[in-house]
C-alpha cells in the first residue's frame, strides 16, 4: 500500500502523480478518489496532467480519453486500457494498492 497524500490536499478536480517504476495518477472526482496508471497507454504522457471531465481523463498529448473507473480508453488513438488501482483511505490519508501487488497485501 502506497501513501499518496492527505485527503485534504487533493481538491476536487485535481490529480497527483505518485512517481515510481510504474507511476500512478490519483484523481479526486467530486469527492470520489480514483487511481490509475499515470502513463497513457498510447504514447508517453502523464495522465495526471490531463484534462478531467467527469469520470474521464483526457491525455494531455493526443487527447486519448480513459474511464477512471475501468481504465478503458473511449476511442482512438489509445487502444489498450490503463490499469486501475484500489484506493484505501486511512487516517485521512489516501493510499493506493497497486494492482499487481493486490495478492500480497
Amino acid at each position: 500500500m502506497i501513501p499518496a497524500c492527505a485527503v485534504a490536499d487533493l481538491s476536487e478536480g485535481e490529480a497527483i502523480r505518485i512517481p515510481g517504476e510504474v507511476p500512478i495518477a490519483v484523481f479526486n472526482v467530486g469527492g470520489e478518489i480514483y487511481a490509475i496508471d499515470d502513463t497513457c497507454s498510447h504514447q508517453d504522457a502523464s495522465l495526471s496532467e490531463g484534462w478531467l471531465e467527469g469520470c474521464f481523463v483526457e491525455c494531455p498529448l493526443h487527447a486519448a480519453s480513459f474511464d477512471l473507473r475501468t481504465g478503458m480508453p473511449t476511442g482512438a488513438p489509445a487502444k489498450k486500457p490503463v490499469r486501475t488501482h484500489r484506493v484505501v483511505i486511512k487516517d485521512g490519508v489516501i493510499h493506493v494498492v497497486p494492482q499487481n501487488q493486490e495478492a500480497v497485501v
Partner: protein
Amino acid sequence: MRTVAVVGASLAGLRAVEELRAQGFDGRVAVVGEEPHRPYDRPPLSKAYLAGTCSPESLRLADDADTDELAAEWHLGVRADSLDPATRSVRLSNGEEITADGIIIATGGRARPLLGAEGLSGVHTVRTLDDAAALRADLENSTGGVVVIGAGWIGAEVASTCHTLGRQVTIVEAGLTPLARVLGPTMGRICAALHSDHGVALRTGVGVQSLTSTGFGPWKRVTGVDLADGTHLPADVVVVGIGMLPNTEWLAGSGVAVDNGVLCDAGCVTAFPSVVAVGDVARYQGPDGPVRHEHWTNASEQPAVAVRNLLAGTTIQEYRPSGYFWSQQYGTRLQVAGHPGDADEVAVVDGSPDDRVFVAEYRRQGLPVGVLAMNNPKLFGRLRRQLRAAVAI
C-alpha cells in the same frame, strides 16, 4: 455510392476508412498505399523509434482485429499513378485499376530533397518508417559528427535524439530564427535555445553550399557539409529536414486542381463532389485563403468532415482545424494550438521562458488566436479549450 477508393494508407487514409464505416458506408473500400507497411504512426519516427526505445510493431495504428473490422481491401506497396476523371478510376503502378464512385485523396507528401545529395550514402530524410530505420542503422554504424540541415520541428527532434544517443550534433538553418514563421521570432528564439542548453551547436542565417564526400559510385559517402560562409562541418551522417512536397503529380490530367496540394473547398471537397482530400496533401479553403496543415492532429481530424461531405454528395460541413500539434525535444514538451502568426502579439501568461516552463498566448487585435506551452500541459489543456470555444476558427 458502392465503392470508395482511399489513396494513401497513412494516418489520414486510415482515419478516412474508419470514418466511412463509422458513418455507415457499407460498400467496398479499397485502400492504396505506396509503402509496404500497414498504417503506422509517424511522430515517434524522429524520437522514440530513432532512439531505439520503441519497436516498429508499436507504431501500428490499427491491429489485425481493427483492420478486419474495417473490411477494406488493402493494396499496399503499390502507387497510384493516375486518376481518370471520366471513369473515376485509379490506375496503380502494378497495372491494376480501381473504379470507384468516391475518391479520397490522402497521398500526403515526401521529404523535400537536398539538391546535390542524390545517391550519396550517409544523407537521410525522416518521413517514412524505412527512412527512420535507415537513419537508425547508419547512426548505429558510425560515431562521428551529425549535421542536421533545417531547424524546423523534424530537424530539432532529430538533433535532440542524436544528442541523446551521445552524438556531436550541429544544426544548420538558413533562416535567422528557427520556427519564426510558425511561432514568431521571440518564441522561435526561445524554442531554439533548447539546442544550446544541451550543447548542440546551432548555425543560423547561413545556407548550405554543398556536401563533401569520399568514394565513388555506390560507395560514395558524405564526409561533411560546406556552408555558404566557407565553414566546413565534418559529418558521418547528415539529416535533411527542409520540409515536404505534396504528392500530387499522379493527379496530372485528372481535372482535380492542384497548387501546392490538392485544392478543395472549406469542407475538403474538390471541384468534383465525389473527390475529397485529407491530411498533409489537402489545401482547403480557410478563412484567409487556401491552407494546408502538415501535422498529426489535422490528419486525424479532417477525414470525419471530408467523409461526411463525400457521402452527402455536397459540402454540408466545413472543417474547423484545432491547429494542435506538439513536439518533444531534449525532454521538453512543446505544444501549440490555434493559429499563431509571426506578426501576432505574444504574451507569457504563466511561468517563465528562462525556466523552460511557461505558457504564451498569441493575440491579434487583442483577441487570443493561439497558445504555445513549454512543459506545461495542464494549463495548455485549459487554454486550448478556451481558445476553441472563443474563436470560430
